[in-house]
């Protein structure tokens, strides 16, 4: 099975690889994994507390090319979005963008889970419930 050009591009030139300060108030960290293939994915976001815009996103993934490409794309997509906009990103969007074959769909699911986990972590740190998020608007 061949990887799509977009997967190969993200694999060879992954965007936003790295790490943000996990202990920072404005940083949310999501760590997710798929035991069957041994993949682990860490995705981090830095959120502007005033605007709730994700200003920075970093990832580090141990896994196959599709897992790396999915998380690389996820960091590109969340940057510049508000937290609630980022929650709208679906794994199926990643599948479409990267032309992932059915056997690699779980990589996109992992990336979506990572986004949600990172946002969840940030919300927990900042005590942002749904009500508080609405009040802030």
């Amino acid at each position, binding site marked *: 099975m061949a990887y799509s050009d977009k997967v190969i591009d993200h694999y060879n030139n992954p965007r936003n690889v790295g790490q943000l300060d996990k202990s920072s108030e404005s940083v949310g960290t999501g*760590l997710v994994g*798929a*035991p069957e*293939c*041994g993949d682990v994915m860490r995705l981090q976001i830095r959120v502007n507390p005033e605007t709730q815009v994700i200003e920075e996103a970093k990832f580090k993934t*141990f896994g196959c090319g599709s897992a790396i490409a999915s998380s690389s794309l996820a960091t590109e997509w969340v940057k510049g979005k508000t937290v609630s906009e980022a929650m709208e990103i679906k794994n199926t969007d990643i599948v479409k963008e990267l032309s992932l074959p059915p056997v690699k*769909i*779980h990589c996109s*699911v992992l990336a979506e889970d990572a986004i949600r986990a990172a946002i969840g972590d940030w919300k927990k740190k900042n005590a942002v419930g749904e009500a508080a998020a609405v009040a802030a608007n």
Partner: protein
Amino acid sequence: MQSHVQNSTASDGEQTYFDMFSLPRKLTIDTAALERGFYKLSRQLHPDLYARKSAAEQAWSLRQSSLLNDAYRTLKDPVARTAYLLKLEGMRMEDENTENRDPRAKQNRVPADLLEEVFELNMQLEEMRANLKMGEDDPALRGDLERAQVQFKAMLTSLDEDLRRAWAAWDAAMDASDDAAKNEQKDAMVAMLDRRSYLRNLLREVDGVLTWQGAVGEKANI
């Protein structure tokens, strides 16, 4: 009889591997009986017996033989047997190559501390690989990995002991028709098999790096 089987080729859902060998859905099985059953059924399906039969019947015997082989291999291996039983019992045991999977299935199934551990070890492995590529061998890093190797082997051993206890508990729950106990064991076994997959993957990579000969590629499985 045979035409009936032919009509249901696509779905082998009606007869489980356990049914094929007339075994109960238990995790401690009589391996001698399994083997006897396998040889007996294999003889009955031997292609020579079908040499003069119609093409359809020959094809049927071939399909049955391959099904029988799958069943035997699965039940013979205790871990594969466990994964198969959990799948039969409606638990989601995804493997990477299953196409018709429900992508939402296993969200948040992996415990956070295991993920942290796996992530950290992968970081060390990566560093060690990078060093080795540069022709350096950092003794401190190598020491860390060797300790990790010992630790992960011990974890695997103790996990397998837990698994054996879970098999006994499952079988007892089956005998007692205790659904609550069965469900408890099912959840526990899914978690154990997940952990086992991670540990085995990690161990394989640690072994690979520690026995590095310069020819081992980076992890980039297609």
